[in-house]
């Protein structure tokens, strides 16, 4: 049964890819809309990555845009500054693009490991505060590095990101996250979220699993940053301020922490809806903010909290899973 569900999901995803592509070829979806769809895909990767740390491991990281910046810059350095890949033959561009994305992810993951090792030993809100500071330090540091353009930003990045690669990486992120959550690593992370002390009593090395999920999330955010840079063809450190991190927090908690489906839905909805509200001009963000406050008051668990699409459900044997998004407050 699960196999069938899996196949149905894959079918739907391939179909939606073909539909978007045909609509684009028929000029019903113009390049502006297509760009928003691709941004939605990148936002899905970011939200899912944040979900692994905040939703499944129960930690509280609020500087995810910092990893996005690191990944974006690292991959852009490879394709733009180290090698002038835009003059390369087309068949060589794709492999170097993919390699640069993975490189960006690895750099971000390594930095995540460095940040995570000392801070994840601490309990409480320290991770939140350190990650907030970390995001801003990344931004300030990039502004100081003239090699990547400093505060002016890095221009001339070739546009390698297209719908196909966004789809591929979004799917990899979703399935990667699902399999991670489904694995023994993921179960350990969930047990830490539910009760860290109890998890440690059961022999789970909580620091190890927290660092692991944090690093994994940083890697995903790095890859998303690479896609982002090669989509906009321009990177500027101020794009990745804590306001961007806040966006992803909003995506995550509006959709429901601990639900990959919620992240997917809210990343799509909250990326697309503001674009359709553009006719409201200055009132757009006011209404967005009001809607957000009302949503969180009416449905604090997020609009898809505690639920999953069929193909993302945990495989369980007569076990019901309770989703609590917040570990007991630590006094």
């Amino acid at each position, binding site marked *: 049964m699960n196999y069938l569900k899996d196949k149905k999901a894959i079918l739907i995803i391939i179909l939606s890819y073909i539909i978007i592509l045909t609509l684009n070829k028929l000029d019903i979806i113009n390049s502006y809309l297509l760009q928003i769809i691709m941004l939605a895909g990148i936002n899905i990767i970011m939200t899912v990555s944040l979900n692994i740390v905040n939703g499944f491991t129960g930690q509280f990281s609020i500087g995810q845009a910092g990893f996005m910046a690191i990944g974006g810059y690292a991959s852009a350095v490879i394709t733009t500054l180290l090698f002038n890949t835009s003059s390369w033959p087309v068949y060589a561009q794709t492999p170097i693009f993919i390699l640069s994305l993975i490189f960006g992810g690895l750099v971000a993951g390594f930095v995540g490991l460095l940040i995570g090792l000392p801070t994840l030993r601490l309990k409480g809100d320290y991770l939140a505060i*350190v990650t907030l500071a970390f995001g801003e330090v990344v931004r300030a540091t990039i502004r*100081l590095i003239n090699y990547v353009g400093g505060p002016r930003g890095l221009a001339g990045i070739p546009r390698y990101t297209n719908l196909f690669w966004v789809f591929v990486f979004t799917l990899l992120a979703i399935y990667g996250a699902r399999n991670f959550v489904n694995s023994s690593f993921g179960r350990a992370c969930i047990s830490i979220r539910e009760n860290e002390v109890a998890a440690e009593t059961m022999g789970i090395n909580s620091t190890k699993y927290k660092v692991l999920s944090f690093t994994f999330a940083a890697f995903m955010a790095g890859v998303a940053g690479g896609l982002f840079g090669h989509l906009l063809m321009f990177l500027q450190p101020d794009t990745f301020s804590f306001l961007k991190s*806040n966006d992803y927090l909003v995506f995550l908690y509006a959709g429901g922490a601990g639900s990959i489906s919620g992240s997917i839905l809210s990343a799509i909805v909250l990326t697309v809806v503001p674009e359709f509200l553009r006719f409201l001009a*200055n009132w757009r963000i006011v209404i967005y903010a009001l809607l957000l406050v009302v949503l969180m008051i009416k449905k604090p*668990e997020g609009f898809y909290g505690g639920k999953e699409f069929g193909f993302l459900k945990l495989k369980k044997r007569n076990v019901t899973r309770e989703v609590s998004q917040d570990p007991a*407050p630590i006094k």
Partner: protein
Amino acid sequence: MTTILQLTMYGLQLGSIYALIALGYTMVYGIIGLINFAHGDFLMVGAFIVFFLVQALGGGHIPYILVAAVIIIGMVLTGLLGVATERIAYKPLRKKPRLSALITAIGVSMFLENFPRALPFIGPAPRPFPELFPMRDFNIGGVGTNSVQLLMIAFSIILMIGLHYITTRTKVGSQMRAVQFDKDAAALMGINVNNVISITFFIGAALAAAGGVFYSSIYPMIDVYMGIWLGTKAFVAAVLGGIGDIRGAMIGGFIMGVAEVLATAVNSDLGYGAGFVILILILLFKPAGIMGKFTIEKV
């Protein structure tokens, strides 16, 4: 040497404002464990209320008694805004996962920034802030300063001493500390927890408004986004000193201000990052901040 003293002077002035704003963060965090992202915007609201009151009084130089009245009105109105924010956006979520309240805080912050921005008579353009205090230059041993700077530092310190008095010597203060210590036990002792939380928000927002007015008196430009960066830095100051601890917020504010000004003197981008680097370093060695007590979790 004189340069360093001079920079320290600027640092103290900036630090006293950070400290005022950090107090609000730390009080709210101490009492309901919420990082109030909207706190930075209270200071913007305070500055704008004072700006429009002064405009209504004819603008320019107004008598000092009116300046005091205007600032106090601004603080009270902003305080009420703080109370309203808590009642509308945070109170319904108090028993819910803590992070939901954080997201509404982000929503409130977006609203407070963008609602004035959308109003035609405020809009996104920065405005010059009126000169509220007499401007006279001094020179103490080669260190240049002016009356506004000194007044702002003095006022900030007076407000902080006042707050310290309230929290340690009055009934409301001991109620606040009781609620911070244990909300349920405090409620059992007959303390009206809701009122205490409202009072905390009132004081925090009022102090932020004062901070906003003082900041705009020294750097006389206001716009709807001024609260974002100021608020973030003040938050870092609060954490630096030990979040939840009022003395810590003051110390953190001054450290943050001096460090930032000194680093900015080297490189303007360094200045922005310096505070955050100090924060990370302090948290690595003293995870609860300078004044914070690190408690061991018991099961």
